[in-house]
């Protein structure tokens, strides 16, 4: 291994300046949208909150998964998923802030309407403001605790082999518990914050669908940030083309998994043809949602599938970077088609991806990247005491 000592990362001041300028400009435009188009403002906030909380959670999930399987190849770039979770406390604040728009977003918060509605009145035990907020805080408390615990364990290894073995076992146990907690809490979190936008409609596979989006966009983010780090000469000789090949396989597999779940939900609803279920797809296959809905499927499935099918493109940095960007954008659009149609139908707004949508996404993205990079520079990019590091850097296909 080379460059063991030359592996700390520092934010480039120019980059930081650009990110802060983007943040400022986008914050200004988003603030304008609050007065000009309040419904779009709240919808955008909800989409971005969910998107970036998912991205942060994908880091946690990825670490837990790799620790359970005791895999070593991830040790070479483990700081990236670790830094991705740094957004979680901010995510809680932003989710609570975004909940200020609950009267715009969630039909079930209008007590007068709920009382008249025979379906919604039965759901009030679960769908009420107090319980919603309690759940939200509990989810984030669990996630933040788990990510702190895993990060601390991963970054401080004992020196004797016997202790290392015990440490490795402890890491696997914590990760396994995290996995169970994550599965339950993320499922409920996506039911709460996204599915309750359409409180009459429900789908039990919904959380699997949002999870598949979380996973694939997380891998895309890891790949993209790792490519940028390698471009600037970091992790030389530690992260090799073989690591990228494996990440490419993940992206390929998980975008296909997403399409699989997409189709599972679509086919069952299409086949059974029950009015209260089909309204979901009728809404998305009408007016000017049609092109967005179907192009989303092409962007998130067909494009990565056909590009990454060949081995050569999984080992090609430009192809990987392109697919990562396509997936990251595609899954934002995916969330847009999940959340916006029902709310916009109510307020008689047509599908629109304009400056407000794009700039609000950039606002969150620049903030997320800043938090990510700040966390990344707090310590070295590799953990010298990690006994699996050496093995992980010798990855072969």
């Amino acid at each position, binding site marked *: 291994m080379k460059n063991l000592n030359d592996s700390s990362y520092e934010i480039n001041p120019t980059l930081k300046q650009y990110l802060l300028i983007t943040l400022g400009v986008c914050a200004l435009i988003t603030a304008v949208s609050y007065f000009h188009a309040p419904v779009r403002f709240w919808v955008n906030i909800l989409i971005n909150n969910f998107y970036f909380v998912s991205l942060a959670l994908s880091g946690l999930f990825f670490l837990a998964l790799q620790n359970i399987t005791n895999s070593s190849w991830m040790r070479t770039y483990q700081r990236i998923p670790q830094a991705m979770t740094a957004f979680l406390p901010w995510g809680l604040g932003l989710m609570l802030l975004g909940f200020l728009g609950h009267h715009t977003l969630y039909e079930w918060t209008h007590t007068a309407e709920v009382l008249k509605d025979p379906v919604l009145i039965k759901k009030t035990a679960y769908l009420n403001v107090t319980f919603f907020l309690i759940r939200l805080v509990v989810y984030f408390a669990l996630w933040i605790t788990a990510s702190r615990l895993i990060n601390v364990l991963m970054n401080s290894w004992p020196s004797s082999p016997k202790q290392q073995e015990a440490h490795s076992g402890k890491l696997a146990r914590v990760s396994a518990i995290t996995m169970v907690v994550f599965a339950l809490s993320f499922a409920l979190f996506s039911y709460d914050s996204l599915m309750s936008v359409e409180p009459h409609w429900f789908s039990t596979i919904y959380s699997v669908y949002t999870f598949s989006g979380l996973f694939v966009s997380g891998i895309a983010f890891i790949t993209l940030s790792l490519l940028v780090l390698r471009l600037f000469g970091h992790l030389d000789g530690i992260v090799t083309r073989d690591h990228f090949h494996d990440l490419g396989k993940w992206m390929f597999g998980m975008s296909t998994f997403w399409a699989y779940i997409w*189709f599972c939900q679509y*086919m069952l609803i*299409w*086949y059974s*043809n029950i009015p209260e279920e089909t309204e979901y797809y009728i809404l998305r296959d009408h007016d000017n949602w049609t092109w967005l809905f179907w192009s989303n499927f092409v962007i998130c499935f067909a494009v990565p599938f056909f590009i990454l*099918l060949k*081995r050569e493109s999984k080992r090609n940095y430009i192809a990987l970077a392109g697919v990562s960007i396509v997936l990251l954008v595609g899954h934002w659009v995916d969330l847009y088609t999940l959340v916006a149609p029902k709310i916009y139908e109510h307020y008689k707004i047509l599908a629109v991806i304009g400056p407000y949508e794009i700039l609000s996404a950039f606002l969150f993205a620049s903030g997320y990247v800043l938090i990510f990079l700040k966390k990344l520079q707090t310590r070295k990019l590799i953990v010298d005491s990690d006994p699996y590091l050496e093995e992980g850097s*010798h990855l*072969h296909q």
Partner: protein
Amino acid sequence: MDKKVQGEFVIGVFDDEEKLVKAGTLVKRDNFHIQDFFTPFPVHGLDELLDIKRSRLPFVTFVAGGMGLILALAFQVWTSAVDWPINVGGKPMLSIPAFIPITFELMVLCGALTTVAAFLFRAKLFPGQIPVTIDRRQLDDQFLIVIPSGEKNAELEKLLRDNGAVKVEKQMAGGRNE
């Protein structure tokens, strides 16, 4: 070694895979052609030394998967929309979403089975095949490098011995079928 391979070969026997890779690298550097390696388990780095071309197996999988896809789709369309149209739940006769699961499964099945068959066929792994064994211990704890014998045999043998070969011997193609 392939049945078609003719002539005499120099065989270097090693007791450590790292020594084998190192010696193989040096042998290749000195412009000797390496015929093959025999090891009890897969060793990284040997494929590169042998200049093996990329396997065409993925292409077989792709074509077979595509065939399975077309076959399954065509058959379902023919049975449920052309030959004997059946109305299921008032849906159109030609309902592609309903055909997707079977299409997917048949694509995977055709792709997977054809790949296994093609691999066994190309690697000549079928019942009654006599495996080439040069030295019994290639199946246990020793690592062999096989190089065609030529004018510079003395130089080659010295190179192998200097780099940790426990034994260097000559053998005719075909090996001893023990």
